[in-house]
């Protein structure tokens, strides 16, 4: 009986894990949350409210690159609603523009990854990255109070 319970529990855990893995809404929301934390770190350094640290910058840029690259593929047609998503239907009505914006964002992040070597180069590359955020959030994300 005990054994059965363990097997059942393992099955439940496994199934939940699989479900979580294939839920694009939950997945992209989690990625965006990481992106937000990374963006916040970078933004603070750009503004001078946090001290510049090259290792942290590299790490944050890597987070943004991974997040954006993965997220771009996480807007399939069956993920328009539910799961607390703030994604607007406009995404699927303008899919080409939406994907082009992701591509541009990734390009700007990767340019920074290649080009940032110190504080001066960071301040040179960072603004271009941040310019991307508002564009998508204006057109493709609902207000969330």
């Amino acid at each position, binding site marked *: 009986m005990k054994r059965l319970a363990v097997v059942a529990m393992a099955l439940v855990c496994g199934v939940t894990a699989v479900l979580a893995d294939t839920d694009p809404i939950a997945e992209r929301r989690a990625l965006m949350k990481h992106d*937000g934390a990374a*963006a916040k770190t970078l933004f603070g350094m750009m503004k001078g409210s946090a001290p510049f640290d090259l290792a942290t910058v590299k790490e944050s840029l890597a987070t943004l690159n991974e997040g954006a690259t993965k997220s771009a593929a996480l807007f399939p047609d069956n993920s328009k609603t539910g799961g607390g998503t703030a994604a*607007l239907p406009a995404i699927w009505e303008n899919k080409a523009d939406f994907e082009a914006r992701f591509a541009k964002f990734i390009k700007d992040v990767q340019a920074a990854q290649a080009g940032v070597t110190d504080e001066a180069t960071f301040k040179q590359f960072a603004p271009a990255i*941040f310019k991307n955020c*508002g564009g998508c959030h204006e057109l493709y994300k609902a*207000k*969330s*109070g």
Partner: protein
Amino acid sequence: MKRIGLILAVLVVALAAAAWALSAPKPRYTADEWQALGLTGDAAAGRLVFFAGGCESCHKSPGQDDPLRLGGGLELKTPFGSFYPPNLSSDPADGIGAWRPVDLANALLSGVSRDGQHLYPAFPFTSYQRMAPKDVADLAAFLRTLPAIKGRAPKNALPFPLSIRRAVGLWKLLYFDNSGLPPDPEQSAQWNRGRYLVDGPGHCGECHTPRNFLGAMDESRALAGAQMPDGHGKSGNLRGGDFLNWTNADIVEALTSGFTPAGDVLGSGMTAVVRNLAELPQSDRQAIAVYLKSLPPLGPPAPAKP
């Protein structure tokens, strides 16, 4: 029996006549009254009024990025139907190039068009009525300097009886607060400036204040967050929730760059608001922060930080 019919008929006619009289558009100024104010518009100052008022958010020609091309025509979806903000460019035929400053004043301050008709409150004259006449004169001077754009916006798509503009007159009787915004002498100049920007030209309440079923703002819950008119999402509560944890500097930053303390970026309609407010002097965004932070908290408390 015949007599009752006659009385009823007279009553109906009398009521209709009363409704017609009561719903008449009432412009704030006659041409002479406006003239008597002796205002000269300053286009450079008007540019700041233009961005404080967020005119371009709705009147900019869609599908391009220049905020000064005001061809109009962007669809504004609301529970009442679709509105298409008109051409505000200096084109004399399709835009408002032929308007006198007093015409702009009556549109902004009393919701009455140049040809004496009611404007729908999708155009936020409900907030703009608090604007100072000098700001209106400056804005008129600035709008004159903008390029003329040809073409008119599509007609509003509204169901009967909302399609009758005169109905707006009855709505105004119920809900139009036509009292301007006298400064509060108890408060600092900075606070008064902040309140003016928020409640007047900035028209923050148009999205952040909940509305009743007739679309009138519920002033008892002013700025406490509301369902967005297009049905997508909610506007933030500026008197509660996580916003209470924002510092003045956080508010100024969010209104300058769009970045919030959480590392998010203000999206949806706020992107244009930020784009516009970023054009104002820093002191104006600081004044907005001071005013917003002075509002009595309303709504559920902020969740505890993990």
